[in-house]
């Protein structure tokens, strides 16, 4: 009973360890710093976006605009760097402000017009993707010495693995996310909204401020994920990152969060992202398996976690009666 709060997180960790053990058993090479480093780098943008999604889902909402915002960010950076002589850092700052405001506006619409987050962020998804299209339909390469510098900077692990800048950035974002979610008043308020908005209101939680803040964070992190993606691919393409929001939602749920809000862990999301990355890595190692198994396995995991959450809720209410 007492541990049921942590059960989904424990399950997630267990699945990860078991899956990794299985991979190691079959391909001993998979337990190397090289693979671990790549796991971090390859999933950096998804991880960062998923942190934002975790906040949104913890509050009982959903943000469908994440993938589009990543694409918009990539295109925006690429085009601005091509057309102007602004330093990438300045452009990064600019784009983060834009995406945070974009998210904040969605949050404001959700709160003040009492509209379902699903539909509002769906509009946001179309809008961001549309703007990305309008800026450029082509894949715009990014060539800047600062990019090369960032891409070439890494921390070498014993065994030849690399912690790249973007891999490290993801870890930092997760760390900060954990602090905000679990150690600040804002974080408690996020959980409170997920527990019930009318009750939160009665208890004096600043609902408007929190809602806007949550979606602004999600927008900001989607922007940061876009920067990461742009560093990862050295290009901006308006058709990129399609469906990342689905992967992010899956990572959050597999990470042990309740999709209806109010319960979950940022750290769980990290494991969720790593599990998804691990599946892909395994498929690459195997060589004979095809990539679509990723989706099917993720679907099965999703189903299993949703069922588990449902079961936990049932067990809890049965125990009380």
């Amino acid at each position, binding site marked *: 009973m007492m541990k049921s709060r942590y059960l989904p997180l424990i399950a997630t960790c267990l699945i990860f360890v078991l899956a990794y053990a299985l991979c190691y058993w079959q391909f001993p090479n998979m337990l190397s710093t090289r693979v671990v480093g790549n796991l971090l780098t390859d999933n950096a943008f998804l991880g960062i976006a998923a942190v934002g999604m975790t906040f949104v889902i913890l509050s009982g909402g959903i943000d469908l605009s994440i993938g589009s915002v990543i694409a918009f960010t990539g295109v925006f950076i690429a085009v601005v760097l091509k057309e102007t002589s602004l330093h990438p850092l300045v452009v990064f700052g600019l784009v983060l402000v834009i995406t945070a405001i974009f998210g904040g506006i969605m949050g404001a619409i959700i709160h003040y017009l009492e509209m379902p987050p699903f*539909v509002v962020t769906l509009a946001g998804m179309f*809008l961001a993707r*549309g703007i990305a299209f*309008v800026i450029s339909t082509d894949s715009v390469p990014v060539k800047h010495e600062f990019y090369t510098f960032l891409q070439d900077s890494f921390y070498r692990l014993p065994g030849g693995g690399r912690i790249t800048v973007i891999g490290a950035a993801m870890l930092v974002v997760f760390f900060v996310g954990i602090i905000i979610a679990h150690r600040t008043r804002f974080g408690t308020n996020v959980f409170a909204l997920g527990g019930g908005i009318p009750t939160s209101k009665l208890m004096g939680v600043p609902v408007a401020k929190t809602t806007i803040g949550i979606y602004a964070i999600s927008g900001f992190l989607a922007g940061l994920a876009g920067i990461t993606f742009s560093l990862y691919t050295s290009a901006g393409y308006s058709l990129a990152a*399609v469906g990342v929001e689905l992967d992010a939602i899956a990572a959050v749920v597999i990470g042990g969060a309740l999709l209806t809000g109010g319960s979950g862990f940022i750290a769980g999301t990290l494991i969720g992202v790593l599990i998804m990355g691990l599946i892909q890595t395994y498929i690459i190692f195997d060589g004979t398996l095809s*990539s679509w198994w990723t989706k099917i396995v*993720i679907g099965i995991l*999703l189903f299993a976690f949703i069922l588990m959450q449902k079961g936990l809720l049932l067990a809890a209410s049965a125990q009380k009666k």
Partner: protein
Amino acid sequence: MNSLKRYAPQLTTLAIVLLLNYLVFPDFFKIEIANGKLYGTLIDVLNRGAPVALLCVGMTLVIATKGIDLSVGAVMAICGAVAASTVDSGGGVFMALSLALLAGLICGVWNGLLVSVLNIQPIIATLILMVAGRGIAQLITEGAILTFNDEGLIFVGSGSIFSIPMPILIWIAVGIIVTFIVRRTALGMLIESIGINQRASTFSGVNARVLLILVYMVSGLCAALAGTIAAADIRGADANNAGLWLELDAILAVVVGGTSLLGGRFTLIGSLIGAMIIQSINTGILLSGFPPEFNLIIKAAIIVIILVIQSPALQSKYIEYRDRREAEKPPADKENAS
């Protein structure tokens, strides 16, 4: 007359969009027959709009029960793949169609069971298939675009009867049949009553559980047809791109058509008009020489406008405003009222 009035906003929107199309492209309404088949931009709109029109038939029923079906795009991919692989392994077109429909039906039952028996929120329940569905479709096509040459199946996508392209016939027929069924039987009313007040409906003996499974089954079947048409159209099943994001277009069409996302009263005809509005906009943007990039921005703008109109907060503010005005009327009125 009454029904015309009911669909006035949708029809007006459609008329405006068509008029704009005509203005940028004077040949818009020109229809000609070539190779025994109707050609023309208007026909193109009706033809291209078939998948969304089909999806929104099922989606309307699902939304009327206060649900949503996110998986229809993925189900399209699965069913397209099933149809393609059936003909490729020697099955005929009927076999292909039947198996595709069966696949759609199974998907629908799956969603329906999750929603009605396990009581999982529709958005979450259908998300599972949305994620896994494309994987399953790729499993069937083995990752490649599964092409086929079966004349029968191709006919479903690009053939014509009495010069009218098949997809148009199919979606109009499905629209009519489903409308007929839900309105001539009690299905429509029972679905609406669940969407408005499931508890009170159950108290009155309405079998909500079965009806919920049923609407998701219809949605699955519609997606199966849409998927088969989409595959037949390109003579191949593309598990990655078939029906991609069409669930969103379908939801949009339903909402544009005048059915509230909050469930209850629904209108299939409205949804179909909604689907045509969306397709006309798509085509119009193409014709106008406007870059197609603007398509999404316009869609976003439409959603925002419609949602703001439907927003419960604004509606209650309006009611408040109206009541206040009523209250400010001379007291004589009030006495009459009481």
